[in-house]
């Protein structure tokens, strides 16, 4: 009882801080300086129609590199923590067969879902979307395949190879931007093209596709590690 009272007291204190923040907030009428810079200069400098993509990939590309690193670390640690004891001949436990609806539906839907994911991260610079959304959709497609066939062994080697190659290529393109153009992860190493076309915005489609592959591979490896654990 006393613990609950202390918890409520703590929450009341935090809530009062939030109330002060809320009451003192007035929404802006004009864009602030940073947003104004991004709004004015994106079309001319970067050539991307999606300003959020331009910020995530080019203007603040170093933060995205940090995020990709954090994701890589968490996927690796999940795989490490959940690794079963070595044993190549671990017999798969007997599970109930999945229904006809799930099996057939998965075979029809999984290629469509993967196609949607690839579309989302290739068109990240034109429409809402990008590498992270596309990677999550690709991972959902892999999850559907996993659910429909629980005994399928995902080749961890292939997934980790895709992930590593995509990560190294991403850093390599960043360094290429340092060498050939203005700075790290500058997208002007490829021609900018006209606004609104698929082959525009320099290297952004390439970078975002690599990020999409990497994120999709990481989420898939997390799901595969979790699904290969044994029922306790």
């Amino acid at each position, binding site marked *: 009882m006393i613990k609950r009272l202390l918890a409520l007291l703590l929450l009341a204190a935090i809530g009062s801080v939030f109330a002060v923040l809320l009451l003192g907030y007035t929404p802006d009428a004009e864009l602030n300086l940073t947003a104004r810079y991004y709004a004015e200069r994106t079309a001319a400098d970067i050539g991307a129609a*999606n300003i*959020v*993509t331009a910020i995530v990939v080019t203007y603040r590309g170093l933060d995205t590199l940090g995020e990709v690193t954090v994701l890589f670390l968490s996927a690796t640690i999940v795989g490490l923590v959940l690794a079963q004891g070595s044993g190549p001949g671990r017999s798969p436990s007997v599970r109930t067969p999945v229904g006809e609806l799930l099996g057939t539906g998965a075979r029809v839907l999984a290629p469509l879902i993967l196609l949607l994911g690839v579309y*989302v991260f290739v068109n990240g610079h034109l429409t*809402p*979307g*990008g590498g*992270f*959304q596309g990677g*999550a*959709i690709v*991972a*959902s497609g892999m*999850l559907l395949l996993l659910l429909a066939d629980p005994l399928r062994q995902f080749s961890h080697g292939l997934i980790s190879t895709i992930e590593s190659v995509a990560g190294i290529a991403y850093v390599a393109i960043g360094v290429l931007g340092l060498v050939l153009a203005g700075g790290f992860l500058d997208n002007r190493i490829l021609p900018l093209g006209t606004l609104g076309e698929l082959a525009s915005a320099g290297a952004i489609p390439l970078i975002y596709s690599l990020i999409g592959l990497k994120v999709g591979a990481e*989420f898939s490896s*997390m*799901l595969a590690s*979790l*699904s290969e*654990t*044994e*029922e*306790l």
Partner: protein
Amino acid sequence: MSHLPLALVGLLCIAMVIAAVVAIRGRSLPIAILAAGLVSLVASVLFLVLASPDVAMTEAAIGSGLTTFLFFFVLGRVRGGQDDGQPDGGQS
């Protein structure tokens, strides 16, 4: 006509708070996990009304898709511990 988005946002916010309370105090764990997925889903609609389509797409795919799946995967593996620690739950 500017009342329509405000009413919509108000409705979404009420739905989110109710779903969050169910997720915290729900009787059984699967109900709590589904309520958390519902919070994510309604939040993604709220992001769309707040003019952020990128964030809405990310929240819908990751928050209410992959997170709920992760929870149910692990829940299926730890069948014995569902009611541990609840005031009216398991005795172990």
